[in-house]
């Protein structure tokens, strides 16, 4: 190898360099060539050295060995390629090869070795020993190479960077020769000029790797600039594509505006439509346009005649009715009234007639009840029934049922007229009242009026005593006002009653009979009481009545009779008189009543009830003599209260009572219900339901029983076995239940298969908690459950695009967090988040200044 190198000329060397060596500047190449030439011609040793130098130059150009390039992974990767000696290196080579020179572990001996070694080198190279001093000191060991030295297997010295030859080494032999100084100068200049020195480039794979690394960074940067847009798109609940692409006309109007008339017909139409005169006519007076809209003369005349006829008819009718209205004759009106009565309408309208009708009806009913004419009591009917003919023949049956029907209708009619009448007595009483003195109620009212007037006068008078005090007077006044108010209401009510028909009246009377009286009286009392205070209102009401027409006095009488009846069951005049005789007490009571308020009233009601119980035979009217009754009631109530107090007191004082223990109390309190037992039963039921008991095996009658033998054998063994197995299974199931050992708990283990369909077995992927998942389904999204304004945004799909429009790839936009969302997508503002809220706020923002970069 060395010989080969020796033979290679410097030209060859230069050529080699050109082919694959590093690009050295020409000057260096030249100098090297110059230096080589003389050396080459001179000595073999120098030649070798120079060759070594060449090798040095070739080191880099040679390229990375295959192991290093890692191509195809044929070699294991080596972390540190250079071979380094460890700190405590002891080479076996020394021991094996350099035995004659002794182990290098021994220092003194080593010193001797070194000396000998340098001496040898000196002898070989002919160089001064100083040249080998440093090297020998540093490197006391000698390596022998396994392979001959070559460019693929350089010496260890070369690899370690030690023992390198320098220019001085080359210069030393030619020192003193002609041109040496010149050369020396040039070399020193070159050494100083560090910039001109070009380092050998890296090997290609290495270079490419570095390049790729740089590119990678750039590409990543390029990709990173898209991140904000991608993020925004991904987080947006809806992505819009091509929203601002116009697809042409969207409305009929837009299409029509572009219309150009082409055919003759179209042109004609256009000329008519665009006629200015026509337009003006329309704008100025629409009537002009009607000129065209002609009506035939005959039609017009016909229509006019018809209208005229109708008008004249109307006029005549008016005249006639005026004339009739003027007639003052009572007989005429009576006859007219009769006519009216005959008609059904009249019966309905006139309360008097209604009353008569009711009377008649009542008579019929009484008759029916007495005779029981239609209740199959007839001879014929009895016979029919006894012989069973009514079952046999349809006709007979129909006749009998018809009879029954008649009976029913008769009695029912009665009921309907006075609905709700609980007892016959009240009816009787009513009848009595109606029959005996119809005038009494009106009289009573008149009296009441007088009394109220009196009391009012009395009220106004009090000049001395407590009541004359100013605050009392004020209080009185206030209460008076209240009373007036109440009276007003009562009057209104009263008027209503008056206005409403007699039938209704009778109904009301019926309503208030019996127990419910007291509730009703409480209502009615106030107006009655107030009436005496407020005759004004009474008068008012009177006037109202006048307005409505007082002529039908009878009607009022009827109503008046009804009103007392309404208030109580019966009226006795004697009591009336009593009441009238002592009005003074009433006034005082009134005051008390006002003071005490509603409580008293209630009390009164209760007392009245008690009274009713005690003295049934002494009915009295509240409508007329409230005060009386009040007095009595209050007295009663007082007495009762006293009794009550007495009762309590006595009970407390007399009894010697031992306090029972808590447990006893509880036991006593819940004596009836056995909770524990009930629960156990309940649990057993649940258990039976969820783990049902196996059915007992039963032989189906007739099956397998046609011989006696089988009967004797009884149930087949497999049936019994199965039954036992099922029983065992049940007990096992019961034992394994969760609530098997918990006596007071029922844990249902029933699984509802239908309900299971409505549950997910596991939490779906994007959700992290059950609550969030359930929350996502909480609100409905349908148009029935949401206002129209938000339905669209609730139901919007993830991607909104238009079919038939090409979607371009994403265009780059600069992120601009300071700018608000622009209106590129008209709906994007609405859409902002039914679900995500403001979460994506920043990501949603969009730069208005769109920069379309095409890097």
């Amino acid at each position: 190898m060395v010989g080969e190198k020796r033979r290679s000329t410097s030209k060859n060397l230069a050529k080699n360099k050109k082919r694959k060596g590093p690009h050295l500047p020409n000057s260096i190449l030249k100098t090297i060539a110059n230096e080589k030439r003389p050396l080459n011609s001179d000595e073999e040793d120098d030649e070798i050295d120079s060759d070594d130098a060449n090798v040095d130059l070739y080191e880099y150009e040679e390229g990375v060995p295959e192991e290093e390039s890692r191509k195809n992974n044929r070699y294991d990767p080596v972390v540190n390629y250079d071979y380094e000696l460890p700190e405590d290196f002891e080479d076996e080579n020394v021991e094996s090869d350099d035995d004659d020179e002794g182990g290098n572990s021994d220092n003194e001996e080593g010193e001797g070795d070194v000396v000998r070694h340098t001496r040898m080198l000196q002898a070989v190279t002919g160089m001064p020993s100083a040249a080998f001093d440093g090297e020998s000191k540093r490197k006391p060991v000698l390596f022998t190479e396994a392979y001959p030295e070559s460019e693929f297997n350089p010496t260890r010295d070369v690899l370690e960077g030690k023992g390198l030859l320098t220019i001085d080494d080359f210069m030393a032999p030619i020192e003193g020769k002609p041109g040496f100084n010149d050369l020396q100068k040039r070399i020193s200049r070159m050494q100083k000029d560090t910039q001109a020195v070009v380092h050998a480039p890296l090997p290609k794979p290495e270079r490419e790797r570095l390049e790729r690394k740089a590119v990678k960074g750039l590409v990543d940067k390029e990709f990173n600039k898209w991140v904000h847009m991608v993020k925004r798109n991904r987080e947006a609940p809806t992505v819009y594509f091509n929203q601002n692409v116009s697809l042409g006309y969207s409305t009929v109007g837009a299409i029509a505006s572009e219309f150009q008339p082409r055919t003759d017909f179209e042109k004609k139409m256009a000329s008519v439509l665009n006629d200015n005169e026509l337009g003006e006519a329309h704008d100025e007076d629409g009537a002009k346009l009607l000129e065209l809209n002609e009506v035939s003369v005959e039609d017009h005349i016909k229509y006019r005649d018809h209208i005229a006829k109708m008008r004249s008819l109307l006029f005549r009718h008016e005249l006639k009715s005026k004339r009739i209205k003027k007639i003052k004759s009572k007989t005429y009106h009576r006859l007219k009234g009769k006519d009216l009565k005959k008609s059904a309408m009249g019966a309905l309208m006139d309360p008097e007639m209604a009353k008569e009708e009711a009377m008649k009806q009542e008579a019929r009913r009484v008759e029916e009840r007495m005779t029981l004419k239609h209740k199959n009591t007839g001879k014929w009917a009895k016979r029919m029934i006894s012989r069973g003919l009514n079952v046999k023949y349809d006709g007979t049956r129909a006749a009998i049922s018809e009879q029954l029907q008649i009976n029913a209708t008769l009695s029912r009619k009665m009921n309907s007229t006075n609905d709700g009448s609980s007892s016959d007595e009240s009816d009787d009483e009513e009848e009595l009242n109606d029959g005996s003195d119809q005038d009494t109620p009106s009289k009573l009212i008149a009296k009441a009026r007088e009394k109220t007037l009196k009391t009012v006068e009395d009220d106004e008078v009090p000049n001395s005593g407590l009541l004359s005090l100013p605050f009392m007077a004020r209080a009185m006044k206030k209460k008076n006002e209240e009373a007036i108010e109440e009276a007003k209401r009562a009057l209104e009510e009263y008027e209503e009653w008056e206005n409403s028909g007699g039938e209704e009246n009778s109904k009301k009377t019926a309503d208030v009979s019996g127990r419910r009286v007291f509730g009703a009286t409480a209502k009615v009392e106030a107006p009655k009481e107030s009436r005496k205070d407020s005759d004004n209102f009474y008068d008012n009401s009177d006037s109202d009545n006048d307005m409505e027409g007082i002529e039908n006095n009878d009607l009022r009488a009827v109503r008046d009779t009804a009103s007392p009846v309404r208030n109580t069951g019966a009226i006795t005049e004697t009591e009336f008189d009593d009441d009238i005789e002592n009005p003074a007490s009433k006034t005082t009571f009134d005051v008390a009543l006002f003071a005490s308020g509603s409580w008293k009233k209630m009390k009164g009601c209760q007392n009245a009830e008690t009274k009713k119980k005690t003295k049934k035979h002494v009915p009295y009217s509240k409508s007329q003599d409230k005060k009386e009754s009040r007095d009595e009631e209050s007295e009663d109530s007082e007495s009762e209260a006293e009794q009550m107090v007495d009762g309590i007191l006595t009970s407390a004082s007399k009894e010697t009572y031992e306090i029972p223990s808590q447990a006893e109390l509880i036991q006593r309190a819940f004596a009836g219900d056995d909770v524990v037992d009930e629960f156990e039963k309940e649990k057993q039921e649940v258990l039976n339901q969820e783990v049902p008991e196996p059915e007992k095996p039963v032989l189906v009658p007739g099956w397998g029983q046609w011989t006696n033998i089988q009967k004797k054998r009884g149930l087949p063994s497999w049936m019994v076995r199965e039954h036992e197995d099922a029983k065992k299974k049940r007990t096992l199931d019961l034992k394994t239940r969760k609530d098997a050992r918990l006596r007071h708990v029922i844990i249902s283990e029933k699984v509802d298969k239908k309900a299971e369909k409505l549950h997910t077995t596991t939490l779906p992927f994007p959700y992290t908690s059950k609550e969030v998942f359930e929350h996502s389904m909480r609100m409905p999204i349908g148009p029935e459950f949401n206002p129209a304004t938000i339905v669209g945004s609730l139901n919007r799909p993830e991607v909104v695009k238009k079919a038939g429009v090409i979607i371009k790839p994403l265009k780059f936009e600069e992120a601009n967090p300071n700018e608000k969302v622009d209106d590129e997508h008209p709906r994007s503002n609405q859409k902002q988040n039914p679900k995500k809220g403001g979460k994506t706020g920043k990501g949603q923002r969009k730069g208005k200044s769109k920069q379309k970069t095409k890097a």
Partner: protein
Amino acid sequence: MKIKTLSRSVDEYTRERSQDLQRVFHNFDPSLRPMEKAVEYKRALTAAKLEKIFARPFVGAMDGHRDGVSCMAKNPNYLKGIFSASMDGDIRLWDISSRRTVCQFPGHQGAVRGLTVSTDGNVLVSCGTDCTVRLWKVPRPTLEDSSVSSENFIEPAAEYVWKNAFWAVDHQFEGELFATAGAQLEIWNHNRASPVQSFQWGTDSVISVRFNPGEPDILATSASDRSITIYDLRMSSAARRIIMMTKTNSIAWNPMEPMNLTAANEDGSCYSFDGRKMDEAKCVHKDHVSAVMDIDFSPTGREFVTGSYDRSVRIFPYNGGHSREIYHTKRMQRVFCVKYSCDATYVLSGSDDTNLRLWKAKASEQLGVILPREQKKHEYNEAVKNRYKHLPEVKRIVRHRHLPKPIYKALGIIRTVNDSKRRKEDRRRAHSAPGTIVTKPLRQRRIIKEVE
């Protein structure tokens, strides 16, 4: 004093036009409507069922090629135009609406392996195994053309012969360059007869190339040494490369997320990568039972379509592990190429049976003009279905698909194999010291390494 009265203003009840709907007023008090949830669940169920009823995805087939369709290209500027090329060197332009050939581009001697159209839709680039790259001028679409000329032949505008056969070609988005994949990756200009740039990393041939639609100078390739590489043209150098366990047949960039790409792998899965972190897939899309031959993203970036050697076309959500839809017919053979239409409404597939097939992207979508009320109804149905999609019954109905027998069986086998593998793994882990057996997550499992 407050008086409660009924007041109805005429304005509220008056319609502007006679065709308008009468306004209906609702009381939205939830206490009045206790059954709303039940009602909506029922509606979701009905919507899911209706979706099944109306699912008729197959629109039509386009036949005319005399050999298997090897590749397709969509015209980015014209919705109705689709180019397809077959193994016998035939290139055709189809009109999707009429499903007929508009014109043919004869010239290639061998199979055409790559087709692409410039962004403006004027230049068609084709390359094939005959070592040529041909540029064609795309005829302008006119109304008359589509009806009459089925025998319209077009001469190539340019023909460049090169040293090696080509496997794929793709055009830069809004640029002048296109890239071919063959023995190495080469970048061409329309006007030069030889490539302007050439990349080689390793000695294996490149089998697919795809430009990034967002970043026009970045492109990704896959090579037969099972690698996926990203290049940057400006730096004229590769940026990243990963080696996977199996070959990647095709790559698609997400048009709405320029950093993301999805690779269609030979092992029947698709792998979505983030271009910045290739050592781990973002998502593994499994469902195909055989090699995925081609992939194309929807322009919305939310879905992609894949065609597989198992004779089926599937549509995946961009972030979902399983397919949303599977399309298959009895007559459809190995699918070599798929495309999503530019308006994200249709899907096209070209297969070995010489046919192109047109499918709806949403199987039950109502095509044509839809009235606003209909639209609202559809939206509501979708929303309700989406809300209750996790409930078992709805889920079952929505997921249900009829599969061809071979695919069904293959799925069963794959499942069995995976189960047994997992079992073995579990047992091994159970019987070894804790921590000694480390399982890679699925997303890294098929990636061998990232090459620097």
